[in-house]
């Protein structure tokens, strides 16, 4: 049973455009929502994370929007660059089992020059 559903599966965006990836979850006990970036042949690396007590968090060109009532959160990549081409995973975990993440299936983002 997939506890975190991610969409779209893949995304093509032009350089300078905005990439938007969405995730939805069911378990209301989740209280930590990270986004990971993974390049081919590498392990996932933390990009940005949010707790449900805030609705938005921004770090550079990356923004998480969080909607607790809808149990949804999204990643926005502003001014997308070719170096952002990677697979992005959303994840969620509970406070009593931090690090035991439920990952989404991933979104492959391709930024064209």
């Amino acid at each position, binding site marked *: 049973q997939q506890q975190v559903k991610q969409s779209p599966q893949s995304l093509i965006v032009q350089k300078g455009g905005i990439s938007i990836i969405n995730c939805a979850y069911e378990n209301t006990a989740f209280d930590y929502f990270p986004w990971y970036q993974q390049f081919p*042949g590498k*392990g996932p690396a933390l990009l940005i994370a949010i707790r449900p007590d805030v609705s938005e968090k921004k770090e550079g060109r990356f923004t998480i929007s969080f909607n607790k009532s809808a149990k949804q959160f999204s990643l926005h990549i502003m001014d997308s660059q070719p170096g952002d081409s990677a697979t992005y*995973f959303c994840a969620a975990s509970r406070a009593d*089992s*931090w*690090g035991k993440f*439920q990952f989404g*299936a*991933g979104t492959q983002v391709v930024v064209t020059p």
Partner: protein
Amino acid sequence: GAGVSQTPSNKVTEKGKYVELRCDPISGHTALYWYRQSLGQGPEFLIYFQGTGAADDSGLPNDRFFAVRPEGSVSTLKIQRTERGDSAVYLCASSARTGGFSGELFFGEGSRLTVL
């Protein structure tokens, strides 16, 4: 090195064989995790160590899978009687903290296991 180190990076074995995958976490990190990532999927939790003990092994798919961390540092994931369905990238991650917003999970590059 400064990151999580995993060996071997690639392992090809035959169905029914025994396999060991090693993880060397970041120095000083007390928490260690194993995940499995199948092609085109997100990582799937297998087991979590806090120190030497397995704090949560609920993700191990069956009793053919076993992991140890005898001295609280290096960990070995052991797979007996491998099956073709075990083919995946096995990721190890470590963390200095076991909770709180300031924690971060650092992943290694993974061990790609192929069972023929």
